[in-house]
């Protein structure tokens, strides 16, 4: 328990989380502070490529024997989790089926920045995770989208029809930028191994925390602005965005332990299950389920669950993993 508290405090006092808070505060006081779009996208590309490469290098170091099973389990969880979320959203939060399906897809998928923040948190505390967690993350992006669309179809909502539209949607889902960067980086890291990594370490390794600070500053701005602009949400809907991560984390802790992951790996997998997508899934839902309200799903995943995980979830899941493994 005191472990947990000290982890939580350590998290809140890291420059990364403080930068996130600064961004949120700036948006709260309506400062004109603005990270140019191109810079924010450049930072996101950097983070995804670098985390992919790091994961691949770790994988090349060995220890990937269990990777295949773990990756399959991760994909299966992403498929299954939206069903649970849909249930909660329909029967407790009383959302319309199409909105419930869209939101559920977000929570079955994952947030790369939450993952990256958790990785750094764990690494700094001597709890590194297996390299193939990156591959597990990549594989969790998409299945939840399919489940979300199936739930919507079951409820009578036809998803988009035009051929051009469908092609566009599936490209968005299967080869979107983040999957390409994560998987591509992973393969590159795995091919070049430690000697190749040495060439790019000053960029991809040493700068990671600093660039993450800048990115989280932007995320703080974006999350808080989203929250300010959001329509009033029902208490039950808001509660969902806190409860679902906790349920997801519990599932992740159990599955991670069963898979025999390291303590850091268990904590990181719990974080993945607890996180919600706010990039790939919104874009896909907007195309496939236009009748679902984007302000709803983006606000829940980006405005509520993301800050919750960054500030409180990560140290909490880490403490639980430590306790579980002790």
């Amino acid at each position, binding site marked *: 328990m005191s472990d947990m508290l000290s982890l939580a405090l350590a998290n809140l006092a890291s420059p990364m989380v403080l930068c996130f808070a600064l961004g949120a505060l700036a948006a709260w006081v309506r400062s004109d502070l603005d990270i140019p779009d191109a810079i924010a996208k450049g930072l996101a590309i950097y983070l995804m490529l670098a985390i992919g490469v790091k994961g691949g290098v770790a994988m090349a170091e060995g220890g990937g024997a269990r990777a295949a099973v773990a990756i399959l389990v991760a994909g299966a969880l992403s498929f299954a989790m939206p069903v649970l979320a849909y249930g909660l959203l329909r029967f407790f939060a009383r959302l319309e089926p199409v909105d419930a399906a869209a939101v559920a897809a977000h929570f079955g998928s994952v947030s790369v920045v939450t993952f990256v923040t958790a990785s750094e948190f764990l690494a700094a505390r001597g709890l590194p995770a297996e390299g193939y967690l990156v591959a597990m993350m990549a594989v969790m992006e998409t299945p939840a989208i399919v489940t979300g669309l199936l739930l919507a179809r079951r409820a009578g909502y036809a998803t988009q029809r035009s051929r051009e*539209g469908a092609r*566009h949607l599936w490209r968005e889902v299967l080869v979107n930028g983040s999957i390409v960067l994560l998987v591509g980086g992973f393969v590159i890291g795995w091919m070049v191994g430690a000697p190749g990594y040495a060439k790019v370490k000053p960029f991809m390794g040493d700068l990671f925390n600093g660039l993450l600070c800048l990115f989280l500053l932007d995320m703080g701005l*974006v999350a808080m602005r989203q929250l300010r*602009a959001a329509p009033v949400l029902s208490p039950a809907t808001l509660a969902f965005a806190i409860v679902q991560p906790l349920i997801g984390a519990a599932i992740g802790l159990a599955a991670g332990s069963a898979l025999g992951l390291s303590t850091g790996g268990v904590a990181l997998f719990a974080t993945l299950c607890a996180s919600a997508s706010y990039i790939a899934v*919104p874009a896909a839902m907007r195309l496939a389920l*236009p009748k679902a309200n984007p*302000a709803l799903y*983006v606000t829940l995943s*980006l405005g509520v669950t993301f800050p919750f995980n960054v500030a409180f979830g990560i140290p909490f899941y880490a403490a639980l993993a430590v306790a579980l493994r002790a």
Partner: protein
Amino acid sequence: MTDPAAGPESGPPWMRSKIEIVCERAIVEEVVAWLRERGVRGHTIVPHVSGAGRQGRRGADDASRVFENALIIAIAPRAIARAVLAESVERLRDFTAIVYLSDVEVARPDHF
């Protein structure tokens, strides 16, 4: 001045219609494909416009880009433009979008 209703070919400068569509970025590719299908032979896109309408403010640079708008401009014969305008009501109903037409004069009628 040529009569706007006179149809495609009635002496220089020729009258055409300018279709302008402000819509959410997600559907830009589809809107362009639809214009092509309707016989529009070219278009210009101004990306990254912001704005506000019935569906609230848009243009905040959220990471997913679902709140971003674009402006599509297309010059086309009047009959095509009218058909696009009429069809837009149904076609863009679920999306964030507005459509409007105006008259323009062009010098190369074969172009549009």
